[in-house]
C-alpha cells in the first residue's frame, strides 16, 4: 500500500472538496471545520500506523515508492528513515490541534483557511518523505505558499509587510540552493537523496555547495542574523499559523542540515563549524537578551525560538552522536513546546484581543487551569528535567562540549537567560493583579482548549521521562550521518576549541606522576 502517497494526497483531495462545498457561508464553514478535522485525524492515525510498522533497527528508507514522473530528472520517489518519521509524526500530531485551535477564532473564509492548512500538511509530509532531491525542493519551497496565504489573508494588521519580508529572505537562499542541486545532480548523475548522501563531492566544491544550502537553511532555521522575519511573521500570523510555523516549518532548516549538508558535504561541515558555532553563540545571547525586553508575548516566544534553534544548529555541528540526537530531539521538543506556547497565547488573545503582556496579570486567580498549563510549558521551555526540553538541551550541550568548550560555555548561558525571560513573562501574565476588569472577567479554559493542550502536555512529559520511544527510531539514521562525518578534519578556530571529537585532551602526564 503506497501509504506515503496516500498521506500526501489525501489532504489535497480534502482541500479541493472543501473549496467546492455547497451551501451558504455558515453551513460551508461548519462543514469545512468538521471535514478538516476528520482529515487531519485520519492523517494522524495513518502517522501512528507508520510509527507502529516502522522498523527501528535500520537506517534504510522504508515504505519506499517510486514513480518516474519526468524521466530521470524528477521522480515521485518517497521513503522515510527514522528522522523523517519523527518529523512526520510531529506534523500530523500538531495538525488536528491547529484545526481545533482555529475552530472559533477564524470566522472569515473558513473553507479556504482549512484548505490552506490541509495543503500545508500535505506539503510538509511531502518534504519529509521525498527521496528525490528535486521533489524535495518542490515540497520544501511549496510549503511556504500556504503559509504566505495564511499570514497574508488571515493575519494581523501588518500582515503584508510580514509575508513580504518572509518572501525576500527565502528567495535568495532558494535560488542558490537550486543552483547547487543542479550541479550536484550533474556531478553524481542521480537525483536520489540516498545516492547523493553517499557521493564524495570534491572538497573545494563541497565548500561552495555547503554555503549555497546554508543560505537557504539558515533562513528557514532561522539563524542570526537572518532571523528578523520570524518575529514579524509570528506576530501577524493567526494562532494556528504560528503553531505550524514554530512547530514544523522551523524544523525544515534543521532537517535540511541533517539530510543534506552534513552527509553530503562532510568535509565542508567539519571545516565550517566555526561559522555555525559563531552564529549560534551570538544567537543565543543576542536573542535571549532581546526576548527579555519584549512587550509582545508572541514576539517574546518568537525570539526564544531563535535561541532554541541555535541549540539545534550547535548540536548538529557538534558532529557526534549526542549532539545530533539532541538536536533532533530539540526540534521535536521545540515543536511541541513552542507550539503549545503559541496556543496558550492564542487562548488569551481570543479573549482579550491583545498580545501586550502588560494587559494581563493575575491569571493564576481568574484562570487557574490556564495558569497551570502555562506554567508547565514555561518550565518545558526553560528545559526543566522531566520535560522534553531538558533531554534535548542536555544532549546537545553534552555533545557540543566534546567538540568545543567555548561554544558550550556560551550556549549554556542560554539556560540562565531563558529562565529569566520566561519566568518574567509568566510572572507578568499569571501572577500579580489583573490589569483591568476585562482581564479579570476572562473565563478559564474551555473543554475544547483543554482537549487541545492536554495531548501536548502528555507528549512533552513522555519525551522528557522516557525519550527512548522517540530516539530509538532515529538512532540508526543518525548513526549513518555520524559515520559519514567520522574522521573529517575539523576547522581550527582562532579562539581555542577542544577539537578532536572523541575524548580529546587527556594529555595525561601519568608517567610524569610516576617519575616523582
Amino acid at each position, binding site marked *: 500500500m503506497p501509504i506515503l502517497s496516500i498521506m500526501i494526497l489525501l489532504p489535497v483531495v480534502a482541500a479541493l472538496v472543501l473549496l467546492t462545498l455547497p451551501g451558504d457561508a455558515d453551513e460551508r464553514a461548519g462543514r469545512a471545520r468538521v471535514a478538516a478535522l476528520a482529515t487531519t485525524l485520519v492523517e494522524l492515525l495513518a502517522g501512528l500506523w507508520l510509527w507502529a510498522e516502522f522498523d527501528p533497527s535500520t537506517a534504510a528508507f522504508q515504505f519506499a515508492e517510486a514513480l518516474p514522473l519526468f524521466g530521470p530528472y524528477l521522480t515521485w520517489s518517497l521513503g522515510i528513515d527514522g528522522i523523517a518519521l519523527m518529523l512526520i509524526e510531529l506534523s500530523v500530531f500538531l495538525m488536528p490541534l491547529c484545526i481545533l485551535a482555529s475552530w472559533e477564532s477564524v470566522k472569515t473564509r473558513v473553507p479556504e483557511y482549512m484548505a490552506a492548512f490541509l495543503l500545508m500538511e500535505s506539503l510538509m509530509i511531502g518534504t519529509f518523505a521525498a527521496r528525490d532531491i528535486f521533489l524535495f525542493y518542490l515540497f520544501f519551497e511549496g510549503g511556504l505558499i500556504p503559509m504566505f496565504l495564511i499570514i497574508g489573508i488571515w493575519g494581523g494588521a501588518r500582515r503584508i509587510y510580514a509575508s*513580504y519580508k518572509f518572501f525576500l529572505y527565502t528567495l535568495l537562499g532558494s535560488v542558490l540552493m537550486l543552483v547547487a542541486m543542479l550541479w550536484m545532480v550533474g556531478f553524481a548523475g542521480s537525483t536520489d537523496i540516498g545516492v547523493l548522501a553517499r557521493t564524495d563531492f570534491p572538497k573545494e566544491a563541497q565548500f561552495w555547495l555547503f554555503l549555497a544550502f546554508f543560505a537557504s537553511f539558515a533562513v528557514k532555521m532561522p539563524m542570526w542574523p537572518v532571523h528578523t522575519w520570524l518575529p514579524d511573521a509570528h506576530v501577524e500570523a493567526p494562532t494556528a499559523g504560528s503553531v505550524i510555523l514554530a512547530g514544523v516549518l522551523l524544523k525544515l532548516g534543521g532537517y535540511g542540515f541533517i539530510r543534506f549538508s552534513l552527509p553530503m558535504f562532510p568535509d565542508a561541515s567539519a571545516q565550517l563549524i566555526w561559522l555555525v558555532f559563531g552564529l549560534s553563540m551570538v544567537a543565543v545571547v543576542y536573542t535571549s537578551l532581546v526576548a527579555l525586553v519584549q512587550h509582545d508575548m508572541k514576539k517574546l516566544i518568537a525570539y526564544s525560538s531563535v535561541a532554541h534553534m541555535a541549540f539545534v544548529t550547535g548540536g548538529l555541528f557538534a558532529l557526534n552522536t549526542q549532539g545530533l540526537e539532541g538536536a533532533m530531539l530539540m526540534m521535536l521538543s521545540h515543536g511541541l513546546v513552542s507550539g503549545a506556547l503559541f496556543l496558550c497565547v492564542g487562548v488569551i488573545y481570543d479573549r482579550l484581543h491583545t498580545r501586550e503582556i502588560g494587559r494581563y496579570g493575575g491569571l493564576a486567580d481568574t484562570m487557574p487551569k490556564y495558569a497551570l498549563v502555562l506554567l508547565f510549558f514555561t518550565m518545558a521551555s526553560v528545559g526543566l528535567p522531566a520535560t522534553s526540553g531538558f533531554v534535548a538541551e542536555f544532549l546537545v550541550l553534552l555533545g557540543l562540549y566534546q567538540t568545543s568548550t567555548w561554544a558550550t560555555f556560551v550556549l*549554556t548561558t542560554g539556560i540562565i537567560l531563558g529562565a529569566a525571560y520566561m519566568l518574567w513573562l509568566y510572572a507578568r501574565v499569571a501572577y*500579580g493583579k489583573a490589569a483591568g476588569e476585562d482581564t479579570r472577567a476572562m473565563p478559564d479554559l474551555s473543554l475544547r482548549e483543554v482537549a487541545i493542550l492536554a495531548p501536548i502536555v502528555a507528549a512533552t512529559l513522555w519525551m522528557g521521562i522516557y*525519550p527512548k520511544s522517540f530516539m530509538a527510531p532515529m538512532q540508526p539514521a543518525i548513526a549513518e550521518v555520524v559515520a559519514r562525518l567520522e574522521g573529517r578534519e575539523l576547522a581550527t578556530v582562532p579562539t581555542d576549541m577542544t577539537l578532536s571529537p572523541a575524548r580529546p585532551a587527556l594529555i595525561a602526564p601519568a608517567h610524569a*606522576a610516576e617519575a616523582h
Partner: protein
Amino acid sequence: MITLLVFLPLLTALVAGLGGRAIGHTAAKAITTGGLFVSAALAWTIFIGFWLNEAPATTVPVLDWIESGALRVQWALKVDTLTAVMLVVVTSVSALVHLYSWGYMEEDPSQSRFFAYLSLFTFAMLMLVTADNLVQMFFGWEGVGLASYLLIGFWYTKPSANAAAIKAFVVNRVGDFGFSLGIFATFLVFGTVSIDAIVAAVPQHAGQTFSFLGSTVDVMTCLCLLLFIGACGKSAQLGLHTWLPDAMEGPTPVSALIHAATMVTAGVFMVCRLSPMFEASETALAVVTIVGACTAFFAATVGMVQNDIKRVIAYSTCSQLGYMFFAAGTGAYGVAMFHLFTHAFFKALLFLGAGSVIHAMHHEQDMRFYGGLRKHIPITFWMMTIGTLALTGFFFTAGYYSKDAILEAAYASGTASGTFAFTVGAVVALLTSFYSWRLVFLTFFGAPRWAGSEHIQHAVHDAHHGHDHAHHHDDGTAGYHPHESPLSMLVPLFVLGAGALLAGIIWHGAFVEAEPGAAFWRGSLAFDTHLMHALHEVPAWVVWTPSIAFFAGLGLAWNAYVRRPSIPKWWRNEVPGLYEFLLRKWYFDELYNAIFVRPSLWFGRLFWTRGDQQTIDRFGPDGAAEMVVVGSNLARRFQSGYVYSYALVMLVGLAAAAAWMMR
C-alpha cells in the same frame, strides 16, 4: 520500600494539586500529610537499618531514561548510608512541616495548592538524594528549584514575592550553569555519569590535564570547581547567596523545610556524595574551605543587624551552610554531614518557632515591634530558646557536638586553608551567639513594643470594629494580646526540640568518631579516620574556643539588648557607614543590579532596536524593498501578490534546471 517512600509524595502531590478543588482542603491536607508520615516511617526504618550496620547499600532501577551513544542514564534509586541520613532529614522535617502547616495556613484560601507544592518538593528532594547518577541528581536539583520557586511565590499577588521567586530560580540557574558544565566535562573525562563508576575511576584521572576554554587545566580541579558552582547556587554560598534572604517572602513553613533544613543543604550533600572526586584535588578543597569560611563570616555579620526575624534566621542558615562547606573542604565529610543533620533539627525548630511568633503577631515580622513575648507565648519561647542553645552550641545540645567537631577538624587538618577556616569559624561562633541571642532578647524580653506595628493595628482595629476605642494603652501593646499557637503547630516544635537537644548525644559516635564512623558510612563518602582521630588530639584551648565564644556572644547580646538597650543606637550613630554596610548586606544586590541586571536589559533593547530594526532590517529586507520600489516597474506589471511571483521564480528555476539537464 524505597520506591514507595520516594513516589508516595509525588502521588499525593498530584492528587492534592490537581484534585484539590474536587476533594476539598481537608482531604487534600490529610492525604499529603499522611503520605509524608508513611514516607518518614519508612525512612527511619531504612536509617536504623544502616545505623545498626545491617542494611546493605542497594540501587533499585526504575526506568531507562536517556541513551545516546556511550551515554546511559537511568532513573534509579540508590540507597546507602549517606542517602539514608538525607532520607531521614528530608522526610522527618517535611512531615512535621506538613503537620505544622495545618495550623499556620489554616486561613489561606489555596491550602491544597500549598500542600501539593510541599509534597512535590519532598519528592524532588528525595529523587535528588537517591540519585545514582549526576543527571538524575540534576533532575532533583532543578525539581527542588521549581518547588522552591512556586513556594516563594506562593502569595503571588505580592510583587515582592514574585520578584523573590524569579530571583531564586535565576540565581540557582547560574549555579546550574556550572553544574551542567561539570556534568558535561565529567562525561568527557569519565565516559559515564554514574556516580559509582565515577568514584571508582577517580584514581585513574587524578593529576591529568585537559583543555577548558583555551587553557590547559587540571582535570579534577576543573570538574570539582564546576560542580561546586552548582553547590554554591543551591546552598547560597558567597556570591550566589543573594536569593536566600529574599526567599523569606514564602510562607514560614516553607522557609523551615526548604530554605533551612533540606534544599539548601543539597550542595553539601553533593560535595559529600562526590567526596572522592574532591579528595583528588587539593586546590578544589582549598576553594571549598575558603568559600565556606567567607560565607560563614559574611552572613553572620549581616545577621547581626537585620530586623526581620526571618531574615536573621536566613542569614544564620547561610552562615551555618558555610560551616558545613568548610568542614567538607578540610576533608571532614562525616562532620559536614553531621552538622547538616543536627542543623536540620534546630534550624527547622527556629524557623517554625519564628512562624509561631509571626502567627501570634498577625504576620508582623519586624523584631522592633516585638518585645516581652515570653509571657504571652511561653511554649514558643522555650522552644525557640532550645533551638538557640543548639544553634549557638551550648553544652551537650546537638549543635555543640557538630560545631565543635567542625572547628576541631579545621584546626586538625593542618592546612593553611584549614587554619584560616578555624580562625574565621571561631569568630563566627561568637557572632552566631550574639545575633541568635539578640533575636531571643528582642523578641521575648524587654517591654512590649507592638503598638506601632501596622499589622497589629489592623488586627486590633478589626477586633474593635464599630467600637469607639478611646481607651489608651500606655504599655506598648495597643490592647493586643498575642496567643499561643494551636497544637498542630506546637507538636512539631516539641519533636524538633527533642531532636535539637538529643541528636548530638545519640549520633555523634556514628557520624564522626573514627572507627564507628568508618563502619557507619561504609564508603558512601570519603571518611578520613586519621583526621577523626586527630580531633581528639587538638590542644585544650581549641576545644574550649566554641564554648568561650558562646558565652561571650550571649553576654554581649544581653548587655546590648537587655541591660543597656541604648548600646545598639550608639553604634548606629557612631559608625553609620559600617552599620549601613551590614544592613545593606555588603551591597551585593546593588552591585549585581548594576553589573548584571541593568546591562542585560540595556543590551536587550540595544540589540532589538539598533541591531534588529536599524541594522539587519534596514540593510536587509527593508533596504531591498526600497530598491524594489525605486527600480522596478517590472514587478508591478505582474500585478501579483508575492506568492505568485514566488511561484514564478520556482517555475523559472525548474525550467532552467530541465534545460540544463537536457543540454
